[in-house]
């Protein structure tokens, strides 16, 4: 089974940036292939790590449902859909990416989702590391990808509201019956010293702060210029913070 790290948090907190930098870290330090999963339809992990995404699991499942009545009766639909899902995977040096894409439409997705779960389970066998960029509801974790995580990183900005949201997400993992070995809080765009009220809120939410990531102006420049964040230099403050983080985790 792959060592799985999922990243979750409110939009705009730096969640996708953290995911991208985790991928960069693993890519630079290990020979092992990484499976990156973009499970947030409002994010764009692919673009941020420099890959061109032209298909998604959501679109593939929907197309499959449309095609159903026209598929020849002797075609085994499980194998057919497995083949289509394999085409969604984007292959790059050491990193392969799956984009989950939009949410499902009306109608029954029990069968397509069952095939997707089988596919994801098999796929995970081929990658020692898996990084999942999640949407806030963590729906993919509960229903489609995997229910077992080694680490869940809850990402927040340096506000009490952000920390409260992270606390809410931690509670949600219990509701969703997710098996998670360790849950940590990561605060992005953090000032040198955290405000006392934030520290109080972290304790109140029962969260364990593992890492703060300082504001790194280059990140915004890269995003504006469309340069992959995986190209950030090693002396970049955010990259250094992610190294610290990974040394604590692994």
């Amino acid at each position, binding site marked *: 089974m792959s060592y799985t790290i999922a990243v979750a948090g409110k939009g705009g907190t730096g969640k996708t940036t953290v995911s991208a930098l985790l991928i960069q870290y693993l890519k630079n330090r290990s020979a092992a292939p990484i499976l990156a999963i973009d499970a947030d339809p409002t994010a764009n992990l692919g673009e941020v790590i420099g890959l061109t995404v032209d298909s998604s699991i959501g679109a593939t499942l929907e197309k499959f449902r449309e095609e159903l009545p026209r598929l020849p009766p002797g075609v085994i639909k499980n194998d057919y859909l497995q083949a289509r899902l394999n085409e969604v995977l984007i292959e790059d040096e050491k990193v392969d990416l799956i984009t989950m894409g939009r949410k499902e439409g009306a109608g029954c997705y029990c*069968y397509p989702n069952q095939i997707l779960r089988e596919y994801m389970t098999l796929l995970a066998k*081929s990658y020692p590391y898996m990084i999942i960029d999640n949407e806030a509801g963590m729906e993919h974790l509960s229903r489609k990808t995997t229910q077992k995580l080694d680490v869940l990183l809850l990402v927040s900005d340096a506000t009490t509201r952000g920390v409260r949201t992270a606390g809410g997400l931690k509670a949600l993992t219990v509701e969703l019956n997710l098996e998670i070995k360790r849950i940590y809080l990561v605060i992005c765009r953090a000032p040198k010293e955290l405000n006392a009220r934030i520290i109080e809120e972290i304790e109140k939410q029962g969260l364990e702060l593992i890492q703060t990531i300082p504001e790194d102006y280059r990140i915004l420049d890269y995003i504006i210029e469309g340069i992959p964040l995986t190209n950030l230099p090693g002396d970049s403050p955010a990259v250094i913070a992610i190294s610290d983080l990974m040394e604590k985790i692994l």
Partner: protein
Amino acid sequence: MEFKVEIGPQFEGERVRKDDLYIEFGGPKVRSKGELVTVREMDEIEHDKITILGPDIPDLEEGGSYQIGTLVEVAGAELDKDMEPVFERKIHIYSNYIEGFMHLGQRNDIWMRVSKDAVKKGLTTLKEVGKVLSYLYTSELPIIEKVAITYITDPQKLEEFISTCLAVYKERDERVRGMTEESVDEFYGCTLCQSFAPTHVCIITPERIGLCGAISWFDGRAASRIDPLGPFFPVEKGELLDENLVVYSGVNDVVDERSMGESSVYSLHSIFENPHTSCGCFEGIAFYIPEVDGIGILSRNFNGESVIGVPFSTMAGELSGGKQIEGYLGIGIEYLRSPKFLQAEGGLRRIVWMPREIKERVKDDIPEDIFDKIATEEDAKDIDALIEFLNRVEHPVMSGEFA
């Protein structure tokens, strides 16, 4: 048997990644590809003969994607043509037992990869892949006494091979379409939807597709063999207890057990007596309309109210949840094409209303003399309009002559 690479189920699902890829056959980049199993007479083939027609791995450039055809010929005293599709699926399963070899898809939609590691270990020719397949076919399936395998990469021979494949696939599809409940020994059950309808059991027969519209008898068979402990399972038919409603003793036993006692008698083709239960995500609904003694069809895609004044969502709410409800039935739309569709109630001749979209979709299977007599939302938006329409067109339900 000794092979250059390891063989076993532990390699199933192993993906050969682009970084590790030595060579690729088929896949999205290649147009011509296909595989076929053909049953031969015992004296027609030479056992264990592996043939490569066209360039082999050493003749091809590393990192490239190439066209390919795989022909597996089998012979044995007990074999018959109907087994070909089952043996053909084994190409996928057995190829994936090979370390450093990936196989995806089926028919003329295949994708194979050989890893750099496998080539390093000696998997340097398609002959080696063929040797493994030949060994597995005969050792795993004793019914197969002889097997010969041919890989075709030569462009012209491949085109010929693929046109043969297409003709065979077509013939098989025709055979599947013509399959009946009487012609098979077992049906398949599905409890995938029990996560939200804990007492619902779907029984899938050659003449009754799953309510989601996705799972055919063929898919049920394939899925129950992949994972015997999963949500798909075989159902022994047992004895036919009622020919009209289509009640089988074996179906009843399984439904009783899997619905935890909620349903103990299941009619496969009736909406009134012990009807099949409904999950929650069925594609369509068949519903009884007492005012005209007819049956209406509603589909999930239909926006607006049905002829009885309720939209799909409201009606779905009433029949969802795995309980037997007389007069309501969740259905896969393709079930409308089944020769046994609600045969106990008169089948399509009892249908009085359905959305135009569905009528167009199943057009070819609606008897000509009844086609114009089935109202759509364009003909009738409420019961009064429906009664008037049915009277005007002299629909069989108005005279009671639908049987």
